[in-house]
């Protein structure tokens, strides 16, 4: 008796499992229109054919119609940023939210607190939320491979923002400031500042790099070294510590406190009987850490480069403590990204560009914007359209 009941039960469960299963695959049908944008050859899954042929066919028809037209108004756009710990990312968050909303999209803007697994999950939740385009400012450009390919499979456009997405086929293009160019500009500003402020050479300098997990950081450094190396070779510049490799100079996680600790030890180790004249700094936070360290050590403030035009550094440039910074206007970057999204929406695909970079797996289209050097002389011109920063120049 017992056995009979159990056997019947098993049979019943399996039958019911089969029945529910046949009604399944709706998820697949729903995602068909999204795929259609990419492949324009949506095929209803074979399993559907028998049971759910009609609705699936309708969906497919819709999909084909929309394939040439991009996507509808009010489409969801995902923006995944690495964190909100520096001003440029915070600005990007606000701008994306406001401007995407103003352009009639439904934005989901999230930041990952510098944690890769968190960012992976955020991107997945954007896929779940039916995003048509996902903009990604990666925590680590190499570690999103699988999840971005998943987005591609769902027919979503993936745009890298500010940092290259490496080691994955799941990327359509990257919007960024020319990072090698940025490094060159930093180095040129450093040389110019040394000549102007510190008189005749040779100059004692030190080099700092950015976070090694950020693919831009080595580019900044290499760009800068392409300008500085000839001057080091001819003796105009002396790197007193001898630390000229990127790995020696890198600042893990762009962490200001780590940069300050390194500067402290450089100053106590190599500059007890020397003056430091200049420091190559990859961004503003690190520049301020370096300047603070020099002040604490009783040194004259050296010529220091920077990047990002953070408010505090704009003030410091204006008051003469930090010689220069490089503005990578976040609004320009956001505007360029939204232009691309609009082009996708209208069904025109990714805009064409001449620049491509090999990300390890494929050649990725790069949409490059030119950065701008800011010193005390030109600050007012550069920020003429930026009331917030103009406030600081008083």
């Amino acid at each position, binding site marked *: 008796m*017992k056995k009979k*009941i*159990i056997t019947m*039960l*098993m049979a019943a*469960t*399996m039958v*019911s*499992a*089969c029945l*529910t*299963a*046949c*009604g*399944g*695959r*709706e*998820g*697949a049908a729903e*995602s068909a229109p999204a795929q259609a944008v990419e492949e324009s050859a949506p095929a209803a*899954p*074979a*399993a*559907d054919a028998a*049971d759910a042929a009609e609705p699936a066919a309708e969906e497919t028809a819709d999909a084909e119609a929309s394939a040439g037209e991009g996507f509808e108004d009010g489409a969801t756009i995902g923006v995944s940023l690495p964190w909100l710990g520096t001003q440029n990312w915070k600005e990007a968050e606000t701008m994306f939210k406001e401007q995407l909303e103003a352009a009639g999209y439904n934005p*989901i803007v*999230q*930041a*990952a*607190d510098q*944690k*890769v*697994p*968190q960012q*992976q*999950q955020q991107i*997945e*939740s954007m*896929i*779940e*939320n039916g995003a048509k385009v996902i903009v990604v400012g990666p925590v*680590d450009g*190499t*570690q*999103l*491979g*699988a*999840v971005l390919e*998943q987005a591609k*499979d*769902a027919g979503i456009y993936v745009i890298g923002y500010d940092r290259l997405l*490496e*080691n994955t086929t799941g990327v359509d293009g990257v919007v960024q400031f020319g990072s090698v160019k940025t490094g060159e500009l930093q180095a040129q500003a450093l040389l110019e500042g040394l000549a102007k402020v510190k008189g005749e050479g040779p100059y004692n300098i030190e080099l700092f790099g950015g976070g*090694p*997990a950020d693919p831009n950081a080595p580019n900044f450094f290499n760009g800068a070294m392409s300008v500085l190396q000839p001057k080091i070779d001819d003796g105009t510049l002396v790197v007193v510590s001898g630390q000229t490799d990127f*790995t020696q100079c*890198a600042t*893990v*996680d762009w962490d200001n406190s780590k940069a300050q600790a390194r500067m402290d030890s450089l100053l106590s180790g190599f500059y007890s009987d020397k003056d430091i004249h200049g420091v190559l700094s990859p961004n503003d936070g690190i520049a301020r850490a370096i300047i603070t360290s020099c002040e604490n050590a009783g040194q004259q403030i050296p010529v220091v480069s920077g990047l990002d035009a953070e408010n505090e550094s704009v003030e410091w440039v204006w008051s003469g403590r930090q010689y220069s910074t490089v503005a990578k206007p976040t609004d320009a970057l956001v505007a360029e990204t939204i232009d691309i999204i609009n082009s996708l929406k209208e069904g025109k695909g990714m805009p064409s560009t001449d620049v491509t970079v090999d990300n*390890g797996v494929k050649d990725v289209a790069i949409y490059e914007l030119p950065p701008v050097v800011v010193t005390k002389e030109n600050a007012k011109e550069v920020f003429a359209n930026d009331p917030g920063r103009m406030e600081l120049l008083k």
Partner: protein
Amino acid sequence: MKRIKQVLGGDLRQYTMVVALVLLIAVFNIISDGRMLTSSNFQNLLAGNAYVLVLALGMLMVIVIGQIDLSVGSVAGFAGMVMAIAARDLNLPWWVAVLIALAIGLAAGVWHGFFLSKLGIPGFITTLGGMMIFRGGVIWISKSISVPAPAELKWFGSGYLPEWGPAFTGMNNSTLLLGIIGIAAFIIAQVRKHKASKENNPIWAVVVRICIVSAIIGYFTWLYGSGRVGTSFPVPGLILLILIIIYHTITTRTKFGRNVYAVGGNKNAAALSGVNVERTYFLTMMNMSLLAAVAGILFVGRSTAAGPADGTSWEMDAIASVFIGGAAVSGGVGTILATMVGGLVMAVLNNGLMLMGVGADRTQVIKGFVLLAAVAFDVYSKKSGSGSVFSKLFRSEKK
């Protein structure tokens, strides 16, 4: 109330977290317009949290013996990085690299086990040292730069089971097979248990229990199997499932498992009754680091690259899962299955809040409160000795 008890099999307290989990899923599903209970979301949920749950398996045993392991994140990161570098720079095939990573985990575990069991240095200190050593090691050997991993590894971290057999099932047949095996195994286990038990639990209760669990397994089989073509129950989920079965068996059926609880409950009493305390400590710590290496491999597979910051604060997620699952801070109490439920509560919370677009900052705050509430609730219900709120509700209803 008595009937519900008969169906669930006695102790209701262990079901409190399960109820919480079900409620969480239901609430998030409603708030997010049904985006929670979708095939792809649940595939992500499992693939994205498998590494934490794998760590929690080992951490449960460490916490049961009354220790803590702070090094697991660093060991996971280190093992993953060694694997990636071995494959890239030494041109080793991917499976050799995986074996190397596991060996690294084992070696790290031997190291921690030695200091804890032979020298008697508390696990907290031993593994705090290990945390620094291996974190520094990752950064050192990687020169702080991410290293791409062999493409084959992606299967471990985010792969799916193969598609085969007839199409009329409308599902991924590998997943369907898994579901059928799961239901069959549960039925066999229940029938055996019923025959063996001397209590007179009525047959209808067993049947209802089988129906409920079969329905749940059936539903998830359908959920995982009916996603986009080419997807299935995720491979990391399957690895996790196998590990859960192995560790559930170890902790409940083997002598070593009983020793773990004995040592955690009362070390001296265990030693007096002939349990080799040193050996139990050693094996538990060794096992933890081995699992950390497995977690590292899964994560690198999913990320397609090993990064210098991999594993940062993973130990905290694992520890939180164990305590939400009802393990005692003082040791001796806790089960593998409850720990998995605890880990899933955290994972669902994370996932649901992200679906709603809540930022990382507030998510962190909410998770902190949940941890505190879960443990406080557990402590309270143990003190008052009157079972869970859940059972109280039912009791008052009956009166």
